[in-house]
């Protein structure tokens, strides 16, 4: 029951923008907490001993490239080029997975270096903040993967361009959040 839209934007797209607005408060709170507690650890290991900036720069690059793939997927489905749509959706999800793999490796590495979740303030704020972001990436990967499967089943065509667009809105938002996190956690260490 898609009624007439008073604003000219569809309900679903408006809902995604609204949700993103609410998510800004969620990440804003997490980021503020991280910043307030920065440098207040009473026991190590400390962030500058652990954070591997070159490694995360690579996974950050991968995540940013996935946003490019997302744009290409949307452009393809808007042209009704279903073959390219499939390819780019797959690549977006795959790059998201690679990013998650990097995060898994990083978390594991930290734990082995003596920083389990309950170690200190840095471990608490770092794992919960980046873990929340990772959870969002994982949700996006499932969403994009589902779209990819639908596309291979031939159930996704140009009439679903907006569905891909909305998934893209979410994906780009999650990317933008990562840029903020990368800057505040890694570059400002």
């Amino acid at each position: 029951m898609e009624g007439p839209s008073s604003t000219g934007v569809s309900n679903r797209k408006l809902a995604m923008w609204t949700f993103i607005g609410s998510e800004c408060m969620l990440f804003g709170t997490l980021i503020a907490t991280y910043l307030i507690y920065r440098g207040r650890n009473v026991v190590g290991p400390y962030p500058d001993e652990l954070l591997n900036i070159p490694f995360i720069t690579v996974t950050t690059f991968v995540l940013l490239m996935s946003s490019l793939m997302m744009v290409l997927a949307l452009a393809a489905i808007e042209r009704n080029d279903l073959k390219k749509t499939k390819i780019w959706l797959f690549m977006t999800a795959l790059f998201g997975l690679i990013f998650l793999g990097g995060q898994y490796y990083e978390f594991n590495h930290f734990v082995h270096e003596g920083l389990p979740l309950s170690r200190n303030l840095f471990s608490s704020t770092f794992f919960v903040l980046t873990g929340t972001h990772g959870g969002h990436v994982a949700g996006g990967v499932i969403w994009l993967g589902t779209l990819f499967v639908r596309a291979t089943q031939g159930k996704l065509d140009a009439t679903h361009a907006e569905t891909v667009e909305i998934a893209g809105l979410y994906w780009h938002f999650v990317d933008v959040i990562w840029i903020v996190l990368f800057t505040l956690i890694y570059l400002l260490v």
Partner: protein
Amino acid sequence: MTASEHALDNGDAGVHEGLYAGGIWSWVTTVDHKRIGILYFLTSLVFLLVAGVEGQLLRLQLARPENRFLDPDLYNQLFTMHGTTMVFFAGMPLIVAFFNFVVPLQIGARDVAFPRLNALSYWLFLFAGLFLYSSVPLRAMPDGGWFAYMPLTSSEYSPGLGMDFYVLSLLLAGIGTIAGGVNFFVTILNMRAPGMRFMRLPLFTWMALIVSVLILLAFPPFTVGLVFMMFDRSFGTHFFDAAAGADPVLWQHLFWVFGHPEVYILILPAFGVVSDVIPAFSRKSLFGYPVVVFSGILIAFLGFGVWVHHMFSVGLGPVVNAVFGGATMLIAIPTGIKIFNWIATMWGGQIRFNTPMLFAIGLVGSFTIGGLSGVMHASPPADLQQTDTYFVVAHFHYVLIGGTVFGLFSGLYYWFPKATGRMLSEALGKAHFWLTFIAFNVTFFPMHFSGLLGMPRRTFTYAEGLGLDVFNLISTIGAFMFTFAFIPLFLNLWRAWRKGEPAGANPWDAPTLEWTVSSPPPHYNFAVIPTVDRRDPLWHPHIEVGLGWAGEVEPGGVSPRVQPKEPPEPVHMPDPSYWPLVMGIGMLVMTAGALGSLGVVLLGLAVTMLGLFGWAFEPSESGAH
């Protein structure tokens, strides 16, 4: 004009057909905003009663000094459950019940933007409430107060499952609330009938829009705070652990940066009800409509900049306290504007003192008292004397009962005929109003005195001879009267449901769109989506030609105000769906598993994903109705 004459209008649908037809399964799978509204209403009424009984037990304990009716431990659990239930499982869902039933009808829509998401919000509210109360048979009720200050609520000082029930149930409820915020924001922005511009929206819908924004911006910080608390309690993190370099006051900031907007989430809808009821019963359009709208927006905006007034005694410093005290006092301005606009609306109007109007006027008076004591403790030096005393308890019960509850009662009497097609008894309604009004003041007015005499809240008893005995006894007597005051309400609801007079489409000669459809409204609400050309669309055509108000002319007629009996074209409505319920059950299982079983969490996750995919791939509508 009596209600039975109105039955001649097109609004003569019977109570037990249409909206209320069908068995349990049709209610379980419903995505109709009206039915979901009724489910919200009935469920939150039960929670209201339970929390009321808890409050009653607290008053019983405080009836006399050195009482041993409740032990301190149980007392702590009861005041925590009373506050938490009233705010999250009675007050807010009761408001959402009205959003659900009224908002689509007021904007000329056939449903909300996302009917299945709406159903999910309801299930999450119900399940979160049941989950919280499952702590009762387990004898593990939370006992840290509804604002659950750290470090009192850490696993060190609150061992056991009590606060885990609090954290997890509010996380679950919060997801449903945020989903509801998205839903109503999009609905009001996007599903208005042609010509229903923003400055023509009925005030109740305006306040629903503002409250949706408040929910969307205020709940995430609370969610994050709850997640921190859960991690501290369950996984040994240090978000509120001073020994690890953290600051426990962070919890207070996160809680109140949500908690103060929450206060406006609870009161603005009541203001919206009153802003619709007072004009209808004064037969006069709302005085200064744009000013009332913008003062609502201003209250919401300022509401995000005053949270520290809950924390004056923390000692954040004179500058911080002064700034937040000043900002708090500013809120009195838009609130006062609303009060004067309601009075000016009544001024010179043809006032009818029906029950909705009595509760509306009751709000104007009682809320003003609560607002004034609010301005008193907006001043940090005064607050340092009053904080954590019964003076504050008196204050927030005046705004929450004298404001929110009176507003919601007003809305209940106002829209009950629309929801059921039956009129409530005026005699019983007036008895309910006067009993409630008197009992409420007898209960809470003496608390101003016991508070100023220094009686602390959340303390299970007090010593004899401090001058507190009489005030407490009066409060307890008032509380019993308050419980008694619910009898005429339930008698009235039961009686009206059984054999109330038919209401007709517009029993109150009210001016807004919900009164153009039959009572109860058909499944599709509007056979023809109306076109709106002015504010108060049911009044002005007649005022222009000098005929008085709508309803006095053309019984059963076909003027543009009256809906045809049958839709001229097929109407597409969303199909019922059980997937929201499946998803809700999955999320409940996850929540329960979070008490200590990873396996159960994963099982819940699987069910949630099943519900999500079933939902995503279900065609949302089939044929026309």
